């Protein structure tokens, strides 16, 4: 990369070529896994990049062959956890953010400080203790436990939503207050309808995380394959005893998981950008 060309006028064509090369590098892994998912030859490593024979058998087996793993079940498990924790997390995050942004109360500062300090501990340092807490209420190896774990931290992740609420003009609240609206009415009837981008952003992040997390899922589910989510399921397929037989199926699973999330992101990209930049810039 020559810095001068970034600012220069003549480099547009050169930059386009460079962008094309970079795009190929960026898409290479994605293309490879899609190709692998249609590969008829078994095994994890094959010398040729493009498969010799194409098949959709991997996808069929992924859902139909439930002898060792049942991917369809994992998918539904994850979907269930994702939907529930998305609803719960979004509600909790927005509630906390609104309280912190709009209300003034004694414990407001301490609460914000607590969120900052707690955020500095490595998240999964607590996983063993969380496991014992869940065990004491008989909730290990259950999907409900996962929903709790994913949503419980939401009370601390209010900063981005708070930053957004801070930009909603306060004059609107005050006008409504004068007209006799209660704070709950302000929240539901004024602030929320004006906060679509941040609601979508929060919900999207909450929906996506169960598909990706496997630290907690692995600890909580142990070896109960039935209750696995797709993330730990696919990870298990790559363990040495399974990888040769299951690699192409793993690739198919990756594609199946990636498609819904990718579609969500592409369609909601605008909200996503507003979400991160809004949060990062406004602080």
């Amino acid at each position: 990369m020559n810095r001068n060309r970034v600012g220069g006028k003549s480099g547009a064509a050169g930059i386009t070529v460079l962008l094309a090369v970079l795009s190929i590098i960026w898409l290479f892994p994605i293309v490879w896994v899609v190709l692998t998912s249609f590969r008829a030859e078994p095994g994890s490593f094959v010398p040729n990049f493009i498969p010799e024979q194409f098949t959709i058998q991997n996808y069929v087996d992924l859902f139909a062959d439930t002898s060792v793993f049942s991917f369809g079940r994992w998918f539904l498990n994850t979907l269930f956890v994702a939907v529930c924790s998305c609803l719960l997390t979004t509600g909790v995050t927005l509630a906390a953010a609104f309280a912190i942004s709009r209300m003034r109360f004694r414990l407001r500062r301490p609460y914000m400080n607590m969120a900052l300090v707690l955020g500095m501990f490595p998240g999964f340092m607590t996983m063993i203790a969380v496991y014992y807490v869940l065990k004491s209420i008989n909730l290990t190896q259950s999907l409900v436990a996962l929903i709790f774990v994913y949503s419980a931290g939401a009370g601390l992740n209010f900063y981005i939503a708070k930053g957004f609420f801070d930009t909603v003009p306060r004059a609107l609240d005050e006008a409504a207050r004068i007209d006799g609206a209660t704070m709950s009415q302000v929240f539901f009837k004024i602030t929320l309808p004006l906060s679509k981008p941040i609601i979508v952003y929060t919900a999207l992040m909450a929906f996506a995380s169960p598909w990706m997390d496997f630290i907690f899922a692995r600890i909580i589910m142990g070896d109960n394959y039935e209750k696995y989510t797709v993330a730990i399921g696919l990870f298990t397929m790559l363990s040495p005893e399974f990888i040769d037989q299951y690699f192409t199926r793993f690739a198919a699973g990756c594609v199946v998981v990636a498609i819904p999330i990718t579609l969500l992101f592409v369609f909601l990209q605008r909200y996503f950008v507003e979400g991160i930049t809004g949060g990062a810039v406004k602080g």
Partner: protein
Amino acid sequence: MTTDVQRMSLPRRIVGGVAGFFTGLGRKAAAFFNIFRKGGASTRLSYFIMGAACLRCRQFVKGGLYLLAQAAFLLYLFTAGAPALAGLVTLGTKTQGWVFDEELGINVLQSGDNSMLFLIFGVLAVLLCLLFLALYFSNIRTAWRLQELRRRGKPIPSFADELRELMDTRFHVTLLALPVLGVLVFTVLPLVFMILIAFTNYDAAHQPPGNLFTWVGFANFGQMLFGSSRMAGTFFPVFFWTIIWAVLATFSNYIFGILFALMINKKGVRIKGVWRTIFVLTIAVPQFVSLLIMRNMLNDYGPINELLLSLGWITERIPFLTDPFLAKVSVLVVNLWLGIPYTMLITTGILMNIPEDQYEAARVDGASPLVVFFKITLPQILFVTTPYLITQFIANINNFNVIYLLTGGGPTNSEYYFAGHTDLLVTWLYKLTADRKDYSIASTIGILVFLISVIVSLITFTRSASYRKEEAFG
């Protein structure tokens, strides 16, 4: 990659928080005695029988709830609470094992104390005591408020009134009830618990219920930081690699992300939207998926090596993930692939917001493109993204996914205590927890990582330009 919380005003908050805590405590203690001195009969009675003032003012539901809470707490304290608190001190005394039974005349298996449960119930008991104290003080505040209302001849709010308040001026209580409960049960309680573990000898050799573990003070920290054992010999190299990784990963992503955004935004480059979408696509693919794919691609027998071999560019397979040095380079490069799109997205937003007339004016004055970049574009980007940069640095110190999924910390280093060449402190912590059950050591590492994060944030935040601006806010 996370787009975590802002930690803009951290130093001030910590210092202010600690100072505020102690002055607040002093004020509370003073008020506690003052109210008793100035209080009427029912207010004074509330010091001993909770809810007395409420009952006196015919707030039967509220007063009854206070009274019930007190009765329940006292019952708990004398039955389960006191033993649990005592257990927190001893962490169990009976070891599981064979004991001679006088009556039977043979050895019988004695079920030992479970130190883990002792610790959990002890922490829970402390937490309940604190909650009760908070309730107790709210009872006194209520009594005082009622006395003032009566003195001024104002009406006493009914229970229905107070419920209505919860949807209006005290709406924050309703809003925060669920978040606080979740945080207490799933974050604070486990965290307190794990912090305490760092001061015990709960490791692979002391696993309940077979064995007891007990308090050892700062021994774990001493062993980790000052010992000459393998532990210290692992901690410091892993610590330095964690810092090097965090610096390189953060800044490489940042610089290249900005370059990408600049390239796409450059005048004359067509189909900007297509380029942007291609790079953003990689954000959408779940991270564990792309990382597991990368791990396979970079394998000694993976497609990249095969491709290079068949092209004849190399004659020997490149050990991307199995050579200690190359593995470190590989994780950094893969991290670029993952992280650049984020910085690119944010920078693109900022670039679009820089007013065109600034560039125009610079051009009229004859500034070279380089000067324009360093005097206009870069300062603007830096100003807006400094908090993001710091957040990213902390996130990279804790970047579990990239390391664990790509190399698993490997290649293993036989001189380390169960860690590999690319292990960060957090992945080492994870391995010690999940594979080794060395919980006390793992907790010690967790606390040290926390301290590192706090120190880094304190230093960088006070020096950042955006730090001074935060006062205008919230």
